[in-house]
């Protein structure tokens, strides 16, 4: 019987919703033991949330005499110690900016196979499915090592509840930071924004948005849906939006349940970053715009007419 660890990510002390899809993936056929590993936030507060999705154990990790939050190398070493201690057969987590970095450090440190940004995992077959060629192909990869590491694309796997009674535990690893990388400072540029890569709904404005200010129209709509706003490269290059908002091959890769593209032509490079969204809606003035060939629902119209009405209707119906 397999023992599977999940690295849990928190935000402001709370378990992020995107963890639940990862827990669901880890359960697989349901014959393994699921251990949630926490390096920040409060494990006590997380017990119920994690138990609901099948965690049988919630472990608060710490490093002997060092502050885990200061270094990703230290986190990776702590996870390595936890893998040994709990004899894990696999460790799963989120392919967020942080998650990707920590998993890659861990894989390199322990010399284990890692699949980053997975779309699906088969725990029994030890295979993962992930994007290749900027989303143009899916690769099925067989993981051959003793322990398999998978960082899963946020929102790629639907969360399904499977209540378990989670037991609490803590584990202090005796590890040290190699100390070769030092954090000088962390600057929070945009406060209280939903992280694009984790957002469940994204409303994106392309080149015709025409100014930074006009994103407010999209933002109002996105906020109603609990989502975030994105931009195309054309809009970023024109100075309407920061690069942090860019979706696509040279921007962020996202997989929300709903993607609303406003004034996007539907370029290959943009689609490389959002092709795996569950439902894609396009709003475009041109009935022949290529995006209408590769989305689920389309409205022919001016985004400046359609989006405000959408916001209005959402206010009425949500």
């Amino acid at each position: 019987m397999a023992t599977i660890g999940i690295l849990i990510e928190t935000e402001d002390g709370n378990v992020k919703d995107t963890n639940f899809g990862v827990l669901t993936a880890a359960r697989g056929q349901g014959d393994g033991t699921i251990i949630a590993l926490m390096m920040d936030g409060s494990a006590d507060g997380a017990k119920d949330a994690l138990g609901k999705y099948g965690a049988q154990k919630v472990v608060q990790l710490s490093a002997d005499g060092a502050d885990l939050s200061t270094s990703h190398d230290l986190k990776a070493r702590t996870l390595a110690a936890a893998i040994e201690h709990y004899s894990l057969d696999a460790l799963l987590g989120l392919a967020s900016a942080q998650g990707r970095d920590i998993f890659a450090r861990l894989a390199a440190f322990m010399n284990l196979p890692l699949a980053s940004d997975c779309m699906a995992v088969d725990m029994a077959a030890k295979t993962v499915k992930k994007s290749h060629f900027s989303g143009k192909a899916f690769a099925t990869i067989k993981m051959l090592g003793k322990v398999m590491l998978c960082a899963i694309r946020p929102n790629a796997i639907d969360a399904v509840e499977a209540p378990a009674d989670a037991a609490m535990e803590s584990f202090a690893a005796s590890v040290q930071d190699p100390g070769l990388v030092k954090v000088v400072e962390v600057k929070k540029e945009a406060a209280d924004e939903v992280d694009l890569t984790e957002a469940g709904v994204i409303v994106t404005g392309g080149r015709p948005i025409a100014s930074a200010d006009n994103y407010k129209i999209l933002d109002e709509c996105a906020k109603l849906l609990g989502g975030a706003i994105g931009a195309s490269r054309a809009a970023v290059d024109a100075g309407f939006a920061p690069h942090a908002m860019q979706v696509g091959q040279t921007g962020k890769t996202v997989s929300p349940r709903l993607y609303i593209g406003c004034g996007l032509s539907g370029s290959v490079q943009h689609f490389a970053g959002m092709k795996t969204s569950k439902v894609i809606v396009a709003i475009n003035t041109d009935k022949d715009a290529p995006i209408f060939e590769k989305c689920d629902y389309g409205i022919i119209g001016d985004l400046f007419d359609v989006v405000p009405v959408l916001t209005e209707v959402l206010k009425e119906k949500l």
Partner: protein
Amino acid sequence: MQIYVCVKHVPDTAANIKIVGENGFDDAGCKFIANPYDEYAVEQAVQLVEKNGGEVIVVTVGKAVAAATIRAAMAMGAHRGILITVDSQFLDSQTTAQALKVAIEQDGKPDIIFTGKGAVDSEGFQTLYRLAAGMNLPVVNEINKMELGEGKATVGHEIGGGAREVLDVSLPCVLGTTKGLNEPRYPKFPDIMKAKKKEIKQITIADLGISVDGAQSELEKLEKTPDRSGAKMLEGDVRQAVEELVNILKEEEKVI
């Protein structure tokens, strides 16, 4: 300074990928380029050497045709190239990292090794970490700001949620570059001509004493991502179309 840049030869992101057999693709029928993220790495290395003196060496693991990518980096200003040849289309990251490590260590003493943040073909996001661990060096990925200091580099990167992190990394180190770090130059004709005369050392991966049999992961299957077959268009005036959309998203798709 002695700066090494790892550059991968990858299919053009605009190219159509034709899948062949279970886990291969038609690489003869598709245009290849230097991995886009690796261009930021080449540019950064060339700028540093222009300022501080030294040498930029490009290292590539790939088929013999990957020499074209090394030439492209040389046209941007890299001085020499090392091409480690392999036969397969896909090589796992651990083996690739080992090959890069051995080739670099046999060649010289790096002050900095640059890579891209990830390869756009296999989307591994890990080779640089494995290279760094193998050489016992610090590593930072996705840097979009960099300043060189005394025995260290100060680098910046995004960490999600609109936050940026500034880090000090002691040299030598491995740095993964991404968009925003610089604007990769467009080589001019004379630079392209000059690049043709520069030296590329070609060795096989076996010459480096590395076996390709110990892979930790194996590509079992490659398949085209299913395309959406075209949109259901919502008709009527704006209000009608939007109401229908919201109903569908709520009742049928259940995404809002």
